[in-house]
Every structure is written in C-alpha cells, then in structure tokens.
C-alpha cells in the first residue's frame, strides 16, 4: 500500500527533482518540470479513480526519483526548442547516432539515412506539420536517453524493413522463386490436435522469460550471446537453460499426451514421428512442387489429385 505523502508535500515533491535535473539551465521552470513529471506519472502510475486523491504518494515520489532526470530535462528542453539544450544534445549524441545506425543497418548509406531521418524527427521537422513537434517529447526517462535513441532507431529500421518487404514486386518474387516456395506457416492438416493441445499446455506452464528464450533461439535464430545480453544473463546460463527447456518440454508434452488418452508408446511415437517428419515432409512437398509432372499433373494418369501434396495447379 503506497504511503501517502503529507498534505502540501505534492507542491514540493518536484522541487528536489527539479534541482537534480539541472532543467533550470535549459530554461525549464519548476512548474513546467512538475507538469512533465505529472504527465509521466499519469502514464505509468495511473491514479486510483475511486479515491481520486490528488496527493502524491511516496510510491510516486520514488518512481519520479528513479527517472533519468537530467536526460529527461535535456530531452524535454530540446523538444521545447531550447538552443543550449540542442547544443548539448548534438555534442553528446549526434555522432553516436551515426554509430548506432551503422550497427543497426550494417550499411553506411542506409545508416546515414536512418540517423539523419531520426535526427529530423527529433528536431521535429515535418513537411506536413506546421508546428514543429519533436519526437523527444515521448522520452520519459525510464531508461537512458541513449538507450531510448537506440530503440527508436531500431524501431524505425524494423518498420522500414517491413515496408520494404511489403513493397517487393510480384515480379521480383517470381524471380526469387517465392511463389513456388511452400508456406512455412501453412497449417498441417495431418497434425494431431492432441499434440498441439499438449504442446500449448506445456508452453503455457513456462515462465515468460523461458518462452522468450525459446522464441528467440528457435524462431529468430538469435545467438546465445544475444539472448544473454537481452536478459542480462550469462551466455552459459542461457545455454544450460535452453537445454533444460528442450528436455523438459519433451517430457511435459509426452505427459500431456498421456493425459489426453495416449499410451506412452503412442505419445512417444507422435512426438518422434513429428520430429522426424520435419525434413521429410518439406522435402516431399518441394519435390512434388518442383517436378514437372506434378506441377502440371496428367489428369489421365492422376484422376484425383491429393490436395495435401501441395501442387500448384
């Protein structure tokens, strides 16, 4: 239960934080800074509507004290167009942003474009908007300003990449053979519903962090080092945990299948067959697609085409 701050304290709670932030150097008044803090509090710690209390709780004070106040002041002063703040921002982050972009794009031309584009967004340059609106108003000081810049840049890169993927022409896809590839997400009609149910149950029992590891490693192909860095763990810990997870999942799925009425042998067979069939099934699909007679089946010889063989006619 958050301890309420004494009456009258809410007016003063921002004062020490304001002093700590150095916002005065950028022309941000204490009232403006308090308003910024209130806005951040509303976003992350919405007030209990039943009490409707306007008093600032100790939890809220602690939360505000945990923010990156100096960087918050700098960012918001930049957004407000303070010249000194921009000067400081440019000297601190301009060159770093180019380095970040280079690491994200791994291409100097795209890196320059990405960094410049973000810088324009941060400055609030927009050909459509009459009023300058800087992206820095969205920074709330939860993490470092540099980390926020990296994340915003990475988001921008991912968005662009997604757009580029969408705009690849059909012709290019044809050239790349995309239209002939089997859809990896195509539901397998032969999949045993019980196997899916057992797998879903086994996955749901895992903590979010474990599921994140599985998705990162097995879906995204991330390295152990990358996963370790993301979670703040040691690489070997991630490796051990993934090994344990893979083994544990197999056991849980088997147990789940037995719980759904399969014998031990049937459950093991379902799981093992599934594993063995991964390569075989894909290979079979590809062979049937790539071979001429199957692509244009001879109706005289094959009167009833099996829809599961994936042919493209």
């Amino acid at each position, binding site marked *: 239960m958050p301890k309420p701050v004494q009456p009258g304290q809410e007016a003063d709670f921002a004062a020490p934080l304001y002093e700590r932030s150095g916002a005065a150097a950028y022309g941000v008044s204490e009232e403006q800074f308090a308003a910024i803090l209130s806005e951040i509090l509303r976003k992350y710690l919405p007030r209990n509507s039943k009490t409707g209390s306007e008093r600032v709780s100790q939890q809220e004070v602690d939360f505000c004290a945990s923010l990156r106040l100096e960087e918050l002041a700098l960012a918001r002063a930049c957004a407000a167009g303070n010249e000194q703040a921009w000067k400081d921002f440019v000297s601190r982050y301009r060159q770093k942003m180019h380095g970040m972009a280079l690491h994200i794009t791994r291409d100097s*031309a795209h890196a320059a474009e990405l960094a410049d584009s973000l810088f324009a967004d941060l400055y609030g340059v927009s050909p459509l908007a009459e009023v300058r609106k800087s992206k820095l108003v969205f920074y709330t000081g939860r993490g470092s300003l540099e980390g926020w810049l990296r*994340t915003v840049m*990475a988001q921008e890169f991912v968005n662009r990449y997604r757009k580029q993927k969408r705009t690849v022409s059909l012709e290019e896809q044809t050239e790349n053979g995309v239209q002939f590839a089997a859809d*990896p997400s195509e539901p397998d009609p032969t*999949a045993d519903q019980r196997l899916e149910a057992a797998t879903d149950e086994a996955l749901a029992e895992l903590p979010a962090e474990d599921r994140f590891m599985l998705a990162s*490693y097995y879906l995204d192909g991330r390295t152990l080092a990358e996963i370790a*860095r993301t979670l703040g763990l040691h690489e070997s810990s991630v490796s051990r945990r*993934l090994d344990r997870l893979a083994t544990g999942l197999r056991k849980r799925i088997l147990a789940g299948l037995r719980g759904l009425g399969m014998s031990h042998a049937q459950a093991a067979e379902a799981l093992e067959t599934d594993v063995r069939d991964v390569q075989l099934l894909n290979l079979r699909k590809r062979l049937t697609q790539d071979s001429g007679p199957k692509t244009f089946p001879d109706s005289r010889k094959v009167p009833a085409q099996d829809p599961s063989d994936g042919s493209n006619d």
Partner: protein
Amino acid sequence: MTEVPKTVHDRLQGLQRTAQAHPDADLLAGFAERALSPDERDGILEHLVVCGDCREVVTLALRAGAMSAPIGIETETDPSLAIPAKAKNGWISSPGLRWAALATGVAVAAAVLLLHPKKLNQAMLTSEKQPATTIAQPSEHSQIAASTDGISNKGMADEARSEPGRLPAKPNLGQASARSPQPSLGMLAANNGRKPPLVGKLPTVPGTGAQPDYRAPANGSTGETFAPSAESTLLAQNDAPAIEKAKQVPLAIRGQASTGQPASDTGAGSEAPTLKSTDADQMSARAVAWSITEGTLQWSVDSGHSWQSALHTDRPLLCYAAHDEDVWAGGQAGMLFHSSNGGLTWMQVRPWINSQQLSSDITHLELRDNSRNGKPRLPQEIIVSTSNNESWTSIDGGTTWDRK
C-alpha cells in the same frame, strides 16, 4: 544445443501476432537496461514472446549499444558482456600450484642451460644488450617515439578523465618496461597470477605457451571492467582478435605511419627493430602490428604470422597511423576512424571546418608528437593528407580541425 520437437516450433510460430499495439520505446529501452519493475518486465516479456518485431528491435538496439561498437559508440559496456570467465585450467589457479609450475619452469630452464651452455650463453648475451636497443631504437624510426617511454600516469589519467566513456589508458608503459626488460617465460607465468580484466571471448595468448588465469572482474561496471592492470590487460571484444597487451611498448606500432602499402609477411618484424634472442622474440610476439591489405585494416599480435581484420568499413581504407594505443585509419571519401585503445573500439571521425566536411580520399596519416618541455602531450596531433592536396590537422583527437 538440444533440438525441440517440431510441434514446439510450430506452436511458438502460431503465437506470433503482427497487428497489435507495441510497447513504446521507453519501455523497451527500460527493459533492455533492466530499469523496469518486475511486473513491467514480465509484461514486456509476454509481449516479446508473441512479437517478433519487438524482439528484433530489442536485439538491434542492444547490438548498437552493448556490443560496444567499434564505431561511434564510446564503450558503454553492458555488465552482461563481461564474461565471468573461469580459469580453463582451474587446477593451476591455486597459488601453490602456480608457484610449483614456476619452480618447474626454472628447473627445466636450468637443466637446458646445463645441457646447452654455449648456445644459451650467446642468447643471453644478445638479450642483455637488446632491451636497451629496443627501448631506444624507436626514436630513430619516428619523430613521435622519442618520448614514448616517458608517458606519465598523470597524462594517461587525464585522458581517461576527460573521456569517461572510453577505455582507460594503459598506465606508465615506460616504467613497466624499465622494470622488466626481459620477460622470461617464468615471469610471464607469474604475471598470469594477476587478474587481467576480461571482456568477450576467452582468447589464447600467443607466444607465452602458458595458459593464463582468466578471472572475471569483481564488478561488472564499466570502470571496473576496463580498469587497466599494471602488468597486462587482456581484452577481446566484438569478436575482435584477442590481444594481450604486454608491459612493453608495442614495438611495431611506435610512430608507424603508412600510406597504404601492405605490410610484408613478417609484419611487425619488418619495421620493428630486429630482435634475435628468444626473449626478444617473445617481446615482439606480444606487440601489435598493423597493416592495410586490400583496403582492410588488419592487426597481428604474433609478429605478423597471422593477421586478422581489425575494422570493418564499407569503403576501402587507404592508410593508417599508430602510436601506442592511438590508432587512426583513413580511406576513401573522407572516411576516418580513430581508436584510442589500441583498436579495441573505434569511432568514426568526421572532420568539419566551417560547415565543410572532409570528403576527398585520405591518402596519408601522420601522428606528430605534441610534447612540450620534454613532456609528451596526449592526444597526438593527427595530420590527414588528402587526394586534393589538403592537409587537415587536429590536436585534440579529432574534435576540432584545422585545414591548410
């Protein structure tokens, strides 16, 4: 790594969603920096499990920062990067056994001495003469090496203070050289008992033949992680080749400047003073040599026997200049990189004067000593010559520039 059944892969894939609200950059940055509350963190993790785009964003953002990027990032080290390395030879980490190993080494050396006294006496005579030559000779090769051994701790400390994000400089190289001009195998093994900070993968140490005792830094923070050891500093980062920086000033890089000619196969040996004794070979083996081959800056830590790429750039590099930890590399279209920590991290420098950027090819780099009253001043003055016959100089490590 143990494979998961295909059904796990499929069901995980089935969880992935595309059209949904994403956490804002603040929360993702806070997640990456572990600044969120446990509840918030769990919420973000739940989202990341089902959102491949946000997983990509977090990974890219971390790559741009925590991998300490050679370019542009001034080493903001994620504590998780500091590998709490275990000694590969755990048994030798015991002090008693280490001394026993040292004693065995001495005994073997004595036995060899008794068996081949004449040959070793010659080698010892050579190596007794060599250190003085080694330390004095660079002054003949370069205008900047004369005062290298006089680099004071104060100067280095000042540099480290002025650039808090960077790796601190190596303290008093000259003092270390003077104290132990002839590092024997035994001495090197003894040094391994110290605690070199280690970041990155466990490397092997060329030339020593001894397995070092890798220890993790007690604290993962930036300053602690990169605190330089007085004896040796062992750092490897971002898949860069491992370097063990010996106490001696690296011979091959003193005052070296290149105009794009690749080093010969012998690398450092071709430009460094010729060392004949086995001890001297060990010393040169621990020096860092640089070369530019096919537009790529390469470094060698084993006297040029093997070379590894030190810096990946989009355009070819044409020249470099190195002095101790201060390394510059220049290339086409004004591409200029600077490392103040011997090539562990790099920063791209963009020389500007009056809104005009250096954009022509950099054909030659030269480092010039700024010493005043006999005291060296860091950083060195860098002189950049370009293809259009301009000369750009900076005396503050590339922050401000002058053009002639």
